[in-house]
């Protein structure tokens, strides 16, 4: 998680996004303990207040839970994690479609382009 941050959005949001992606990729498992605020701050080179804000934000979203005196853990609520997966997919699709529309592509062209791309990518993977 040492990559640098973009300047266009608050670091606490970018850090929350990174953690969400790691959860979805199963690099971090349900029920697993997150690094302490300070460990995470040192690892990412950011202010501990920022990490605290990230953890609070993730807790508010029901993705992690803080257990008093024990630390912060990824939720074991499988439904919530599945929901998160769908949310992130939806968000990515929205931004993709919006960019395509800005360039004048209609639904049919977007879909056929996407299908062709995926087929090609699949072919490349098999080789």
């Amino acid at each position: 998680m040492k990559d640098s941050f973009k300047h266009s959005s608050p670091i606490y949001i970018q850090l929350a996004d990174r953690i969400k992606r790691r959860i979805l990729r199963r690099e971090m498992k349900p029920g697993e303990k997150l690094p302490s605020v300070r460990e995470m701050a040192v690892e990412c080179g950011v202010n501990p207040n920022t990490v605290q804000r990230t953890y609070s934000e993730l807790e508010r979203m029901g993705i992690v839970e803080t257990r008093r005196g024990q630390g912060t853990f990824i939720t074991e609520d499988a439904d919530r994690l599945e929901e998160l997966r769908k949310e992130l997919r939806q968000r990515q699709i929205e931004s993709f479609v919006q960019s395509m529309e800005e360039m004048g592509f209609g639904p049919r062209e977007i879909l056929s382009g996407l299908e062709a791309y995926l087929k090609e990518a699949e072919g490349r993977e098999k080789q």
Partner: protein
Amino acid sequence: MIRFEQVTKRYLSKTALIDVDLEFPAGKIIGVVGENGSGKSTMLKLIAGLLRPTKGRVLVNGEPSHRRIARKVAYLSELETYYPFFTVQETVDYHAAQFGDLDRKKAWEIIEFMGLDPNAKIKHLSKGNRGRVKLVVTLARKAPYILMDEPLSGLDPIVRDSIIKGMISFIDLDYQTVVITTHEVNEVEPLLDQVVALREGQVIKVMDLDAFRSNEGMSLAEWMTNHYAGHSPLKKQGS
């Protein structure tokens, strides 16, 4: 909390700060940025009680700042102020004798973290390691306020990184507030909660960095280039 009330600081021939009205909230890391000569170091020295305001007041925890505020304020000078004939360990001992809040155990941890040899003499250390020693004696103190004047200046990237990591590891924002002046804005930006921008002795902007990122969508360095090169009209604090 640190407060500047209508503070002006004049030296013999030049005015370093003009009518500064400002509050540094507790529990944050605050960066003071600006060009050379914009008043950054003066601001820190006024908080540390090393200088007195020509006009106005500087309050630290409600108490007017004076020399004895050093009990509450750990100040890292941009100059090299340590005795060259001391070893690293002796430097820590010396500071422990000056400041009752210096935690020797913590000093030891930071020395280890920084990879310093406690028996090496200051005069035999590289510039980078002398920078690390300054950090040791500053961060080992349990002072509620930590002031750092250009802690990264003139140091190589590896030393800068270890100093930044050391700051994150050994500052406790539950009871400490940090004010840091720097030109290395790109490296320090991810650490900061708030930025105070000075130009020619005046505060031109106080910003919360999360809000700044959402609103401006640029780096602090870019913002500074725009505002210090005269592309934009002078903005008063809070605009």
